[in-house]
């Protein structure tokens, strides 16, 4: 397909002058055409350049495309015609104060003042506590009641506010308000010394340390024209799969706990820890912090580490298989999982769901297959999509991916490729350049984009966690579902608050 956007590759350094700078009308028209035709939005953000505000969008079909334009202070909302832009336009309105006219549901995303000191699009006074003066979506009627939960929840979990409109036990509408974890990470990226970049990336979302670290490292590598060696690529792939394993296993355990089937909940709780410990074996930290750096990895797979990793996996694999079997063969579990919280393929497409949640709803997209990085072009990843989009399918995708990830790691352990470990080092970014990276972390597509100014300083650092797409999927799954099934649906998505809130 040819269009006014420029075709680019994942992790390719692009000189900014090569990026088409369109009129807003053409930008909007082309973006709408691509996305209405089944394309998706990877990144759509605003940035300030020489006192002008500009837009930039990265779209994907089976390829990646980029283009930019001048940003009007207010503009006809793209979401009006095409839903996948919805969150991005709200984010831009919040961060930069550009108003998308006719946006179907214009409300704040994370609750903070815009960076330009212009009047707030939402009319919020940020001296007041979240949620400001926002009126939650309300359903009217005698029998309707509201349930408000959070921000502080009844467990060791992150904060967020959930507002249910119910009739009896049935949820008509769930509205999710986040932003409590907002730390202004994107702005920190602009102002810190290069040595802090990896630390920031690691702490966007701790359970996705490797996913975010890879996006950051690949972006810097592309900009500085560095290619990590084969061994580093392999270790990074192993680490990303270990992260997937720990999280999927933990989530299946939690799902089991939520339907009161306690043996798998406890076994998987413990086994998840074993996988976290394998990350510690590799790099000294259970979440993989300290492993990935621009240029490669900081720790090699020394022979003794290889041995231990192989041994542990051999020991854990049958245990995992047996507990999976225990969980999925229990009729009581299936009775609760099946037909619960269905998100149709149609809705999932409109919401732009990614990762296991998308695959459970019939969208096969997997970055490892479509835009492979690191060692993934050498690995055969199955399609993993499922037909119904219920809790069962969301669990089932995890089931398949757990077995695949173990297999992937086992097949890589003994590859005799060595790596030259990198030390933390300083780097200078080239001027007037752009790069976007995507990786398939355990929740789905993570993406980072970097724009540099004419002196090589970072002008814009954009982070997108898969949760940015998928929170609306959770809200959708609750429609017409019993409110008591909220925990189950919530766990089947298990989205990140901090990754969303940045």
């Amino acid at each position, binding site marked *: 397909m040819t269009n006014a956007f420029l075709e680019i590759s994942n992790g390719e350094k692009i000189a900014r002058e090569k990026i088409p700078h369109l009129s807003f009308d053409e930008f909007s028209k082309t973006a709408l055409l691509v996305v209405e035709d089944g394309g998706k939005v990877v990144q759509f953000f605003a940035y300030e350049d020489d006192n002008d505000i500009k837009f930039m969008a990265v779209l994907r079909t089976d390829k990646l495309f980029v283009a930019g334009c001048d940003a009007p202070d207010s503009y006809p909302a793209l979401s009006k015609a095409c839903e996948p832009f919805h969150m991005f336009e709200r984010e831009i309105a919040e961060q930069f104060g550009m108003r998308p006219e006719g946006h179907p549901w214009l409300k704040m995303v994370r609750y903070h003042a815009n960076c330009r000191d212009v009047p707030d699009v939402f009319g919020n006074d940020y001296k007041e506590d979240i949620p400001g003066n926002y009126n939650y979506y309300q359903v009217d009627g005698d029998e309707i009641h509201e349930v408000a939960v959070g921000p502080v929840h009844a467990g060791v979990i992150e904060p967020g506010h959930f507002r249910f409109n119910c009739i009896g036990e049935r949820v008509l509408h769930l509205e999710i308000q986040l932003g409590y974890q907002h730390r202004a990470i994107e702005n920190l990226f602009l102002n810190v010394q290069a040595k802090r970049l990896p630390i920031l990336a690691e*702490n966007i979302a701790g359970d996705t340390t490797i996913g975010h670290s890879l996006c950051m490292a690949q972006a810097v590598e592309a900009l500085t024209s560095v290619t990590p060696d084969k061994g580093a690529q392999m270790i990074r792939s192993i680490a990303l799969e270990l992260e997937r394993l720990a999280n999927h296993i933990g989530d299946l355990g939690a799902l089991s706990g939520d339907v009161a089937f306690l043996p798998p909940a406890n076994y998987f709780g413990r086994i998840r820890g074993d996988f976290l410990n394998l990350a510690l074996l590799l790099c000294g930290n259970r979440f993989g912090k300290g492993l990935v750096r621009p240029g490669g990895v900081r720790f090699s797979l020394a022979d003794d580490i290889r041995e231990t990793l192989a041994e542990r996996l051999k020991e854990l694999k049958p245990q995992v298989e047996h507990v999976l079997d225990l969980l999925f063969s229990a009729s009581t579990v299936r009775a609760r999982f099946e037909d619960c919280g269905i998100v149709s393929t149609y809705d999932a497409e409109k919401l732009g769901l990614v990762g296991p949640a998308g695959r459970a709803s019939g969208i096969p997209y997997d970055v490892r297959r479509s835009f492979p990085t690191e060692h993934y072009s050498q690995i055969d990843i199955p399609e993993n999509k499922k037909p119904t989009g219920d809790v069962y399918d969301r669990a089932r995708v995890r089931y398949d991916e757990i077995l695949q990830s173990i297999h992937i790691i086992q097949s890589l352990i003994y590859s005799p490729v060595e790596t030259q470990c990198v030390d933390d080092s300083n780097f200078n970014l080239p001027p007037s350049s752009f790069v976007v990276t995507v990786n398939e972390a355990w929740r789905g597509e993570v993406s980072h984009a970097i724009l540099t100014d004419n002196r090589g300083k970072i002008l814009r650092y954009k982070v997108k966690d898969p949760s940015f797409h998928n929170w609306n999927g959770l809200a959708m799954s609750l429609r017409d579902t019993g409110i008591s099934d909220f925990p189950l649906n919530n766990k089947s998505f298990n989205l990140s608050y901090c990754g969303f809130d940045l």
Partner: protein
Amino acid sequence: MLNTLKNRFEQGCRTCGYPKEKPAVFARYRGKPIIQKDVSSDIVEACAKACPQDAIDIDLKKIDMGRCVFCGTCERISKGAFVIFTDDFEISTSKKEHLLTDGDLPSLAEHSKQHFKKLFGRSLQLRQVSAAGCNACEADLNVLATPFFDLARFGINFVASPRHADGIVVTGPVSRNMKTALLTTYEAIAEPKVVIAVGSCTITGGPFTGSPEITEGLDTILPVDLFIPGCPPHPLTNLHALLTFFK
């Protein structure tokens, strides 16, 4: 049913023997830093320059564990000449200034408050408040409930309501949007109450230092009794701190 029993048999008993026995952690784990005191200033300066957290005090030749994320860069670039990170996970302190260390940590048991031991030694109920970290600290607190650590066997539990709690465990650098919720939770707990700060971002801002959206140090808004450093602290570090401080 048979399947359930078979699995039960295969799983066996997995609870660790801590505190009676110290479980082994893998060699690359970075626990308590031990500073080599006779190191030359050049090396310390090089380490301080490379430290992403600016956690190294050049004059005192000490590391501030409240800022440190235990990345190990200083150990690596000094080839161990400045500091070696040991496998000792018992690194919590009752005073913030004790976190600035050369490896010689005061005994936590001796610095704990005796009336806390008396009050909470047999039963301690904690409310956790997650306030804008990366969620890894929460994750490694959560695992204390798994069979391996089995926190409940010590009479320590995480509870749902602050009204049922003897104290709060805070993770994260307390964002502006979370501050009120945190303070309200704190107020809802009956006196006497305990405040525990877990993780470098809670203690000093950690990785998020410099952001105008956060609070740099929980102790600037609440009286903190127990500091558990790390990014995140190892679950055994958490366990050690809770057992030593309250038991």
